[in-house]
């Protein structure tokens, strides 16, 4: 609001910054603590009073981690699963979003509302039968069970439809048609390049979402070599809770890739989150 004095020193400013700082400390302290605990032995983590500074056991903890479980294999598994989901998700959602935004066809409205309605159905309703389906497909303990069901989503189609509607101009599409482009070529050569900035944001969004998936991989995967990183982390916590320094080293390494990703794309990601909420 422009009514507030923007220059000079005042008491309300001090309170304001104190308020902001308190939440900043709350937000950052756990990350700091993650590094502190990952660099200490278990006895030192649970000593009283706790040590508030970095220790020197990060290397030892890391060695334990790698000796006990296929940690980096789990990271690779997660990269593979989340990467595949993201690519398929981007392709199918942008294709459908483009179709809904730029074409009129019979039953379009009904199909669109049907799609939106599916968002209301809570996922856990079909948890048991989904597992049984995967069993009949012989997909238990495979990545198909993780990747295929997540290849397209109502949310993604809705998002990309909203974006395509306002940014892809009909003139461009008509020009393409005159040049003899079919619908798929229109999508590939006209729509896709225009959608690229949103697709980046949306892609990171889906990548992080599936990277953090826990319940479904926990049900589907039963071979530790195939575990995704979340399942590994939680089983690590369950089995090796006596070696907490090691568990925290694992937690730290599992968090870093996401932080790096976020550091690179933070503006895009935050923009996408807020714009989505305001528009809907």
């Amino acid at each position, binding site marked *: 609001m422009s009514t507030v004095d923007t220059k000079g020193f005042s008491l309300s400013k001090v309170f304001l910054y104190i308020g902001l700082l308190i939440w900043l400390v709350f937000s950052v302290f756990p990350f700091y603590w993650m590094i502190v605990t990952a660099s200490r032995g278990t006895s030192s983590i649970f000593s009283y009073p*706790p040590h508030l500074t970095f220790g020197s056991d990060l290397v030892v903890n890391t060695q334990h981690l790698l000796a006990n479980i296929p940690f980096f294999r789990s990271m690779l598994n997660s990269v593979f699963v989340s990467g595949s989901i993201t690519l398929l998700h981007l392709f199918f959602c942008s294709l459908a979003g483009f179709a809904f935004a730029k074409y009129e066809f019979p039953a379009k409205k009904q199909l669109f509302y049907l799609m939106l309605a599916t968002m209301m159905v809570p996922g856990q*309703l079909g948890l048991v039968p989904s597992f049984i389906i995967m069993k009949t497909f012989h997909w238990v303990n495979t990545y198909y069970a993780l990747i295929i069901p997540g290849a397209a989503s109502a949310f993604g189609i809705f998002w990309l439809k909203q974006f395509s509607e306002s940014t892809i101009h009909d003139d461009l599409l008509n020009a393409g048609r005159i040049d003899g482009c079919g619908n798929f070529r229109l999508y590939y050569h006209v729509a896709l390049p225009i959608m690229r900035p949103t697709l980046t944001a949306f892609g990171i969004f889906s990548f992080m979402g599936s990277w953090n998936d826990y319940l479904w991989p926990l049900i589907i995967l039963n071979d530790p070599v195939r575990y995704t990183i979340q399942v590994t*982390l939680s089983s690590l916590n369950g089995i090796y809770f006596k070696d907490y320094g090691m568990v925290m080293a694992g937690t730290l390494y599992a*968090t870093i890739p996401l932080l790096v990703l976020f550091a690179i794309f933070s503006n895009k990601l935050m923009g996408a989150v807020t714009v989505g909420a305001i528009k809907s």
Partner: protein
Amino acid sequence: MDAAAPTPGKEVLNIPVKKVRTLHEIKKHTSIYLFISPFYILFLVFGLFPILFSLFLSLQSWDGLDTMKFIGFKNFQMLLQDGDFWQAVGNTFTIWFEQTIIMLFLSLVIAFLLNSAFVKLRSVWRFTYFLPNVTSLVAQTVLFYIFFSPKYGTIDYFIQKAGVAPIDWLNSNFWLQISIAIIGIWRWTGYNALIYLAGLQSIPDELYEAAKIDGATTTQSFFRITIPILRPIVLFTVIMSTIGGMQIFTEPQILTGGNGGPGGGGMTMVLYLYNQAFSNHLFGYASAIAWVLFIIILIFSLVNSLIIRRLSSK
């Protein structure tokens, strides 16, 4: 591909036309139907079919291996008398409520603070406030376990230093639920604050200036301009936190090792469903649970949307 489609997309008429015309239209748009088909196929196989199948399963007694036995509504009768289940329902709503109320309050405060004209380095604040949302929930819960851990927990250390008696976070129902709520609050407060901030910034300054010229006080413009614009955004975030809150699973599963804690205060609806299905192999019973959960969530959403409609018509 449909190379011979000369009609520009937007120009097709919306008037109801004869069947022949519709058939022709459908044929002409074959490739478009193909474009949108993956979602519907996936939904049929991995969405709709499982739901219908779970209705069928809920009437059976089945451990997933032997032959199924039809038992009618027995699963539902058992469920109605299953105290553990109803406790889980109560727990879930309690955790959701604690989490949502505190989170809403904090994120609104943060959004207003950040929106003050003289705040410097807004992007730095935004970046750090968003960070908690970037960690995985599993990693976060494993980490927060140390904060809450019974004897040597980090939080207890700090509150003891402040002269408060230590809290047995994970062993009493009340504090276990608060612990789970805290994990959610840490994760989502900054996220929601940024959404509110974007809402606040979408209000043009001219609106406030015009109100000022018309003689409105700051309080008046707050209640007449800021609140009405922010209301739908707040409702959106409440809906999102309801959807998430009803499905809480990861935090209690990891904090309590899956058993819901000594007093069962951390047993949530989805954790209970998971245990019945995948630990006890009661697939029929678990399907009945899923349906009752669905009905509970449905009623809750209806009540929710009724309240929303009343609020937004004010």
